[in-house]
């Protein structure tokens, strides 16, 4: 077999999923961002990555970009819905403080991935962002391209219960949807992943369809709820214990990142339990509050660390 040769063409953001990711990474790297790798835990959105949640806090400059696989167990559709997946990718950019030309930078990034504003109708439509589980809110927009939401744009005002000072700007690109648009594909599973054609072509479905099927079964049918309830309680307990252990009344906090990992674990356990349908409406609110309390405690501890500006 001959080795297929990826060309610059096959890595064009309009030809391949990976080309889109690489283009965004290169773009934001050129703008001075550190390009991070995905956080190695199950999270519901790119915002959960400590590079956003925690780094958004405190006075220090912080510019980062990364891809984050995101898991929303409830969005599983057994691989039958072309638009909705329980596992998908977000491309996340965090710029602190938010630069004066942040909108222009964003539009430039769209140009870079092939969205020409001479023929595409790009719009900033009001969207107030709030994450009850993270104790966070901000104002901004959904960014529309020809009527499709391609990104979220938020000026963080508060994260993990802490006022943002200074404010960070957060850009989140929904990669599958953006790629579908760029490639002109109506079904997410038909996205060209590697930009090659013929027998060398790998689609998004080749990579992820089986996972969507299996995880949908898992999320809705097989996930062990007793274990998940235990996981939630244990993660909650450990998060609090670590925060208590790392707290030096005077001086810096020593255990924020490990504690925050437990907050992420609790949140994911909750999402799975929610998908399994074992949490009633009233309980739901109280679980969200419990995760928020963890996030807020982590936020309060973070500002007592070096990276948090203490």
């Amino acid at each position, binding site marked *: 077999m001959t080795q297929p040769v990826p060309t610059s063409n096959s890595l064009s953001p309009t030809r391949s999923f990976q080309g889109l990711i690489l283009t965004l990474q290169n773009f934001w790297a050129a703008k001075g961002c550190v390009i991070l790798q995905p956080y190695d835990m199950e999270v519901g959105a790119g915002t959960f990555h400590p590079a956003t949640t925690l780094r958004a806090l405190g*006075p220090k400059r912080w510019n980062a970009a990364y891809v984050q696989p995101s898991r929303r167990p409830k969005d599983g559709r057994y691989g039958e819905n072309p638009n909705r997946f329980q596992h998908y990718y977000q491309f996340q950019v965090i710029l602190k403080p938010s630069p004066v030309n942040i909108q222009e930078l964003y539009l430039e990034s769209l140009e870079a991935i092939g969205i020409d*504003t001479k023929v*595409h109708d790009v719009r900033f439509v*009001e969207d107030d962002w709030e994450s009850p589980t993270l104790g966070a809110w901000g104002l901004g*927009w959904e960014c529309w*391209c*020809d*009527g*499709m939401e391609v990104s979220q744009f938020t000026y963080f*005002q508060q994260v993990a219960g802490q006022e943002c000072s200074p404010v960070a700007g957060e850009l989140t690109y929904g990669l599958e949807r953006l790629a579908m648009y760029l490639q002109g594909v109506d079904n997410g599973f038909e996205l060209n992943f590697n930009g090659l054609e013929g027998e060398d072509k790998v689609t998004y479905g080749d990579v992820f369809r089986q996972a969507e099927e299996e995880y949908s079964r898992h999320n809705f049918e097989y996930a062990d709820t007793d274990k998940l309830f235990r996981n939630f309680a244990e993660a909650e307990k450990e998060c609090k214990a670590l925060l208590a252990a790392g707290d030096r009344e005077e001086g810096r906090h020593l255990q924020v990142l490990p504690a925050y990992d437990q907050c992420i674990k609790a949140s994911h356990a909750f999402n799975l339990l929610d998908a399994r349908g074992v949490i009633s409406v009233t309980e739901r609110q109280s679980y969200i509050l419990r995760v928020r309390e963890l996030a807020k405690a982590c936020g309060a501890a973070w500002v007592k660390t070096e990276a948090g500006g203490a």
Partner: protein
Amino acid sequence: MPELLFELFSEEIPARMQRQAAADLQRMVTNALVDAGVTYEGAKAYATPRRLCLTIHGLPAHQPDVREEKKGPRVGAPDAAVQGFLKSAGLNSLDEAKIESDPKKGEFYVAIIEKKGRPTLELLADILPATIRAFPWPKSMRWGPQSATPGSLRWVRPLRAIVATFGAEGDEPEIVPFEIDGIKSGNVTYGHRFLAPAAITVKRFEDYVSKLEAAKVVLDADRRKEIIKADAATQSFAQGLEVVEDEGLLEEVAGLVEWPVVLMGSFEEAFLDVPGEVVRATIRANQKCFVVRKSDGSLANRFLLTSNIEATDGGTTIINGNERVIRARLSDAKFFWDTDRKVWANDPEFKRLEKFRNVTFHEKLGSQWDRIERIRALAKELCKVTGADEKLVNDAVTICKLDLQTEVVGEFPEVQGLMGRKYATIAGLPASVAAACEEHYKPIGPTDTVPTDKVSVTVALADKLDTLVGFWAIDEKPTGSKDPYALRRAALGVIRLIVENGVRVSLSELVARHASCPGLARASTTSDGGIAADLLSFFHDRLKVMLRDNGARHDLVDAVLGNGEMNDDLLLVVRRVEALGKFLETDDGKSLLAGYKRAANILRAEEKKDGEGAFEAKVEPAVLVEPAEKALLEALSIAGEAASLALSKQDYAAAMTAMAALRAPVDAFFEAVLVNAEDPALRKARLGMLAALRRVTRQVADFSKIAG
């Protein structure tokens, strides 16, 4: 005269806030000017997604000078008083004060304080930044490096530039100088984000508007709306179609673009299998596009989008993009619609109702399940007065909220009710049961139609009464402008259902009984009787508002409600108001009212002397002398009986006719008889007849509350 041009250029302002923001900007700046004694000829404010603009013309160059006289102490007053006066008047010594005298006070000091008016430019340099800082955005934010500083500027989205020029026509305007959070006021703004992003130097409003227009910005939202409306209509007309008008959407869309360009797209005919309301809701809510209909009223497979650019390819790419999104959205909608229908087909026993046990209706009022059961009990009671079939009503109650569990309603709450009807129809339920799913929410507001089907009327009444009694029980009544549970609307709905369907029901009893049902009694903070009385007076208030809005004289409503009865049968109240209104249009009515007023005035005066109720005793015919008074006594007795008989049959026309018979005897009485006769017994008897007249009329209404 000079004019002000003030523009606040920012990142995209939410569409729903723009109009109010423009009004607030105008109000704040002009109020501040007026407070400073500066008048102006005219002002107008505008908003686009990226700017708020205010122009004020006919401003003076200077604030007017102010001359004020300040009275001081007597000549020769203690030094402390003199020093205080000098200090407060800003004088250096008494030499700068005048001495005046008046006969009472003698000689005293007067300071003349003259304040030179400041240049308007300088005044504006204070007012404009103060306006920006105090601007009442519903939600505001911080941004950028300066957000680390406490007290940094908050704005709806980052503020990027400020234009503030001031000057007369023909002159080079000056810049109103100020700086706020690092943004300096100037004379530079920017055109359309994509079509003409370059900086533009402006002088005053006139060239500002035309330069913006050249830079692809239509400043006036109303003009943007007109453009969109006209273009949408033209493009639809060309296809033999018609735009489904949507003022709310038009307003929003006009707030999303600076340069509106309307484009038409289409979707697959097959999606038209989904109910039109759902198609419209999908396209409207998610895509902010208009839908169009054919001449037969059904939806066409077209939509109209409003883009913000003149695309170099004529809009093909934009249309394609929007079509793809709409296709995906409609696929979702179709999927929801198909899924819901399957659920309805597979669960004909409605076992899924159990899920409502876990859905909170209100923290203090229990679950949705509890609420449905309360509605069920109440609806059963109501069948007695509406004459609806109990079985059908019971079935309707069972499923009336079931569409809340559907995917379509989960996605588009605005089609709640309508979907229930559709699914119930498909499930083969009786037409009136299906209709009740939709109609029990009605009427929504004063102009909405009122259901007439007895099943719908019954469930609608039960639904609204349960809401009202429930929130009354937990003391969550509307106050002032706050009515989060739309209780005023619910009460108006009850009234309209009762009146327009001729339902006879004693509301107080019903309310008191419902308030004592276990679920509500447990939640209640008030006694059942207290709830009933209070709620009834709430109904009376809403009834007054409704009748007044319908053009009825509200003095008649007050008069009818003032008859000393409970008036908890609202239908009868309305009928009495109608009958009274008609009666008062006749000569008999007018004349009787005049006679009544005369009688009441005399009674009031005489009751002051003899005491309240002094003339209520039965009149002895033997005391009477004049034929006219004997005749009146006779007439009163006949009319009184006839009216009360008619009233007991709720025959208000007959009651009025009975009273009309009093007109002639009353007129004759006043003509022939001096009420305050010297003979005390005769006086008392005559006054007694007037009191009887008052009693007879009060059976119908308190005539003293009637104007004229």
